[in-house]
């Protein structure tokens, strides 16, 4: 894209963002204790983030959004005595417990359909970028992550798993949790309670390890490789029940292919496939030693590893452990897509349709698409497009422009 087209794209995006902030914005959720938070902004066509910004009221924040029209708006998960001071002098008072679930990390199969990579030498390909360019050997390839309903659905399942563990294991209540669609490829969950506010970095790290099953010793939960006693039931509290449930799932629905992927030897696979029903029945009755024996010690370890992977939550550990994190302002627009960072009612997480609910604009816009994969938005399919001028719903048009796949058509 040449300079002129890029400038056109920027002014188009900025105009749409400006319209959005001018008319409300109704979805904006001013964070609690606003005056004690740090804000950060990115602007169209600028590289550097404006940080350490403070506001004394929601009106002041909205006035800023309207006047400056940032491409991205963030606030700190922490509250500070003096949010505008430099980091060491801010006076940290506590921070919400935040989680970031990114479809990018979930290795959804659709990644291979819609993600692309490109090298400076001109080579391109689909799927996640290889470590080095197969053509010229250069490293650090540019990745173009795309998103679709199916990878966001996976991310949403992950979010629900996260909320379930936080609720049943940690006793956190629905009223303490707020979930948001990030406007791009994932979900954020903020937990706010007196209890979590003061947690330090290493304590948050332990919570992350708990959720991700890092450093877990299954024998601590009754899954030792030997010894008698009943194996834990899926109804046991905490990880004991979660692992037991995951193992019963493996027994119930993993085919040969799936079992092989866990790292089981052919002999163990055969034993499981042939004895599936009785093994499952025994497992649910707490008689797990049959499975243990048939799998062998290596196989048993493989099953446990698989169960941990199945039952754990894939979150970005850095986001949760960082006490000074900036996170997207709910109700702002995401500069990568023009979609709203939108709060999800906890009770309707299951019904949330990101592309329908997060679309911020009505009407149509005419754009020229350079190249774009097929794209499903709010039940409708668009594209694929290649070098063509099209009239599209404004949100779809903005998405393609923000992604650098299109520029406004000039008559």
């Amino acid at each position, binding site marked *: 894209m040449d300079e002129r087209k890029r400038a056109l794209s920027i002014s188009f995006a900025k105009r749409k963002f400006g319209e959005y902030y001018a008319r409300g914005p109704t979805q904006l959720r001013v964070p609690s204790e606003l005056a004690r938070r740090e804000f950060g902004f990115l602007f169209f066509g600028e590289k550097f983030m404006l940080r350490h910004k403070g506001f004394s009221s929601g009106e002041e924040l909205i006035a800023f959004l309207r006047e400056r029209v940032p491409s991205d708006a963030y606030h700190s998960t922490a509250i500070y005595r003096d949010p505008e001071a430099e980091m060491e002098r801010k006076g940290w008072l506590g921070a919400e417990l935040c989680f970031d679930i990114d479809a990018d990390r979930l290795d959804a199969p659709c990644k291979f359909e819609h993600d692309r990579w490109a090298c400076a030498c001109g080579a391109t390909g689909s799927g996640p970028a290889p470590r080095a360019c197969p053509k010229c050997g250069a490293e650090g390839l540019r990745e173009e992550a795309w998103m679709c309903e199916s990878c966001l659905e996976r991310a949403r399942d992950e979010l629900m798993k996260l909320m379930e563990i936080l609720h*049943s294991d940690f006793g956190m209540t629905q009223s303490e949790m707020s979930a948001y669609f990030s406007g791009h490829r994932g979900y954020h969950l903020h937990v706010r309670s007196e209890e979590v506010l003061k947690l330090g970095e290493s304590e948050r790290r332990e919570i992350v390890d708990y959720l991700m099953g890092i450093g877990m010793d299954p024998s601590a939960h009754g899954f030792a490789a030997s010894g008698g006693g009943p194996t834990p039931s899926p109804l046991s509290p905490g990880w004991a029940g979660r692992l037991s449930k995951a193992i019963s799932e493996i027994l119930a629905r993993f085919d040969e292919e799936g079992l092989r992927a866990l790292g089981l030897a052919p002999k163990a696979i055969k034993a499981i496939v042939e004895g599936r029903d009785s093994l499952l029945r025994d497992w649910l009755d707490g008689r797990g030693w049959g499975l243990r024996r048939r799998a062998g010690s290596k196989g048993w370890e493989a099953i446990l590893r698989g169960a941990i992977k199945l039952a754990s939550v894939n979150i970005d550990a850095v986001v949760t452990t960082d006490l000074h994190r900036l996170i997207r302002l709910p109700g702002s627009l995401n500069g990568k897509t023009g979609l709203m960072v939108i709060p999800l009612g906890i009770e309707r997480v299951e019904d949330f349709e990101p592309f329908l609910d997060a679309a911020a604009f009505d009407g149509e816009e005419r754009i020229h698409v350079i190249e774009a994969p097929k794209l499903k938005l709010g039940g409708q399919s668009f594209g694929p497009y290649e070098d063509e001028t099209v009239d599209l719903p404004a949100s779809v048009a903005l998405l393609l422009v923000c992604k650098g796949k299109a520029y406004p058509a000039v008559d």
Partner: protein
Amino acid sequence: MFGKIDLAKYPFSAEAAEYIKSKGLMLEDLASQEFRPILAKAEERARGAMLEGRIPEWRRGEEEMEIISYPIALMLMSLVRDQGVQRRFALAEAKRAYGFLREDSSEKILRIGEGTFGMRIRTAGESRSNRFYEFELYFADYLKDTASLRHGKWKLCNRILSSGWVSLTREELARLIQEEVYRRILERLSTPIDGEPEFLKPIVSGLRGLAESARGTAEYLEAPKGLILEAMPPCIKSLYEGAIHGRNISHMGRFALTAFLAGAGLGEEDIIRVFQSSADFDGRKTKYQVEHIFGLRGSRIRYKPPKCDTMRTHGLCVGPEGECGGIRHPMAYYERRLGMRRTRRAGGTEAVKATPSPDRDG
């Protein structure tokens, strides 16, 4: 009931503080002849902690002295103004408390945990996997209390956690109260006392002298010859810094650090000196452990430092994922930084064995 013997066992408790307050003692009183034995007892507490890492036992009938000597020992430690020594003292007092707590009734454990330290504890009474979990501790308190406990069994993901409560055996709860005692004492000692009463000067300077000689002739803050601090991976660096600053290091952490330093070519004496400022330094034991890792004792196998996976499991990996650039072994990081080729050094690493389990190598 919380009797005098309980006050003597737990002189840090809220009840003991109340009792001491009711005595209406003034600082000047301590200068009198009558208080000599109590001052002597306080000094004994301090010396015991410094020299042997333990508080001497008290004789039955001398509960009063045991109780009152505690705040005086705290005062002495505060006046000595030496963090390493203070940590050693705090640890000795905390371990003493643990020794009593684990033998005491559930009611007492609960009372100390809740009343003195504000821990949120529930009595549960459930058996699972052949263990009897008598108590539950609220997870936020649990995380705070286990922050410096590095053994894998304390990792939250290896515990039963339900609705925010972590199941604990009575012994485990007592162990966590030990952590509370340790932290509480260090907290108290972190606010220095202004001025030094004349009559305490001889005792305090005696303790300072003891601290000096116990630490050895040279402050060991300079890196031993042949060790390149800049090339250390973050995990080992954090353990190393912990050791020279006298912080407690888990068993696995010590093992990793020792084996790493040995692998980096340091001699036994040098390694022992690294651990010298640690709060629970025990010269004989450290020497034994180091020799063991060197293969001079026990199985005669020279141990290799644990690989990154193992470090991670034991909570010893400090860096965010990817910081070390895909390296799988701390030694490899060091060697790569030094630009060394992976050659076997003289001194023989041929009899190299996988990492022992933490329970076996000590």
